[in-house]
């Protein structure tokens, strides 16, 4: 009988994920209502997802949150890059071209500024914690850009594995902080129009962070923010191990 029950839940992983996300959304709606709708249901659902992810991570010791629990493996399908990117692209349908054109210059500027700022902050924090060699500093700086740029930089420069792990952790902190903080500060930082969303996407960079942050703030802003964010990781992978490293090596080499 046990086997029958387990099989019923695990035979269709993607379908189980639909049910789970449906239940999370329903509970989040109730919580949001109980709090007087001050925080959007989607924002509550995102936090519930992150808490479940933590529980899953502690239970299994894996790196993919709740989806490492075999019962919920379908989450990795539904929340994986295929569906995520497909859904992001679909939001572009109905976006206004003239708004995108207006956001072009500030969006591009935000990408460049953000990579410079992230590398500077990452390297400064690394320095404060006692790392002085340019390879480690560039790797930590990469992690402060996104959790993909960190290991890419570390692998390219031959950083030690604990520094690479540290850079990934910094990037994950960044992307989760974006998810949680965005709906809370959106009004105060002026994130309420397409152009600000494009700038926000370029400044934050993490595709998953931006995707969740805007979903919890205002889904209408998603296409503008996601568009610039998708250029960020590639741009960071280009700049960090090359120009970033050269500058750091010139200062600390």
């Amino acid at each position: 009988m046990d086997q029958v029950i387990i099989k019923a839940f695990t035979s269709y992983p993607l379908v189980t994920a639909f049910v789970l996300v449906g239940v999370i959304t329903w509970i989040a709606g109730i919580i949001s209502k109980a709090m007087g709708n001050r925080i959007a249901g989607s924002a509550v659902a995102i936090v519930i997802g992150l808490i479940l992810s933590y529980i899953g991570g502690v239970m299994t010791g894996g790196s993919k949150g709740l989806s490492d629990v075999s019962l919920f493996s379908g989450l990795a399908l539904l929340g994986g890059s295929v569906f995520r990117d497909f859904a992001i692209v679909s939001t572009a349908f109905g976006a206004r071209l003239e708004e995108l054109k207006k956001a072009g210059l500030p969006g591009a500027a935000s990408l460049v500024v953000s990579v410079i700022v992230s590398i500077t902050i990452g390297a400064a924090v690394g320095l404060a914690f006692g790392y002085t060699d340019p390879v480690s500093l560039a790797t930590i700086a990469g992690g402060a850009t996104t959790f993909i740029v960190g290991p890419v930089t570390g692998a390219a420069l031959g950083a030690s594995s604990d520094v690479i792990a540290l850079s990934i952790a910094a990037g994950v902190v960044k992307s989760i902080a974006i998810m949680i903080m965005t709906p809370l500060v959106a009004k105060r930082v002026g994130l309420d129009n397409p152009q600000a969303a494009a700038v926000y996407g370029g400044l934050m960079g993490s595709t998953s962070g931006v995707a969740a942050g805007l979903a919890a703030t205002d889904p209408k802003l998603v296409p503008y923010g996601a568009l610039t964010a998708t250029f960020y990781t590639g741009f960071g992978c280009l700049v960090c191990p090359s120009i970033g490293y050269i500058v750091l090596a010139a200062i600390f080499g």
Partner: protein
Amino acid sequence: MVIYGLALMGGCMIVGSFIGRSLGWLLGINADVGGVGFAMLFLVVVGQRLMDKDQLSKAAQSGIAFWSAMYIPVVIAMCGTQNVVAALTGGPLAFIAGLGTVVAGFLLIKPISALGGKSEPVDSAANKQKGAAE
């Protein structure tokens, strides 16, 4: 046909991914540089053109609209796959570096937005469009 909407989106994604990968290859990095972003630009341009010529049926549009509506559920599922344990156990260096860049980012939104022209909040813009249509 619903599938036409999905095929249109899929086509945009394949072309976008090709451009993103080619850019990465030209720059000498094994990464997709903005593939999804290019796909979105194509969908905006091609979608608008097809709509203007009235060549995108209601059913085809609903195929795209379905995925657009699935965006938040997909994001919730994605949150369920994050490595939250690594974030919480990464230590103070990871915390300060990660959080510091996010805070700096938020502070920079207003000054950099000022580079472009004035942009209206989505709500009022949408209302105005609606008003013009009525």
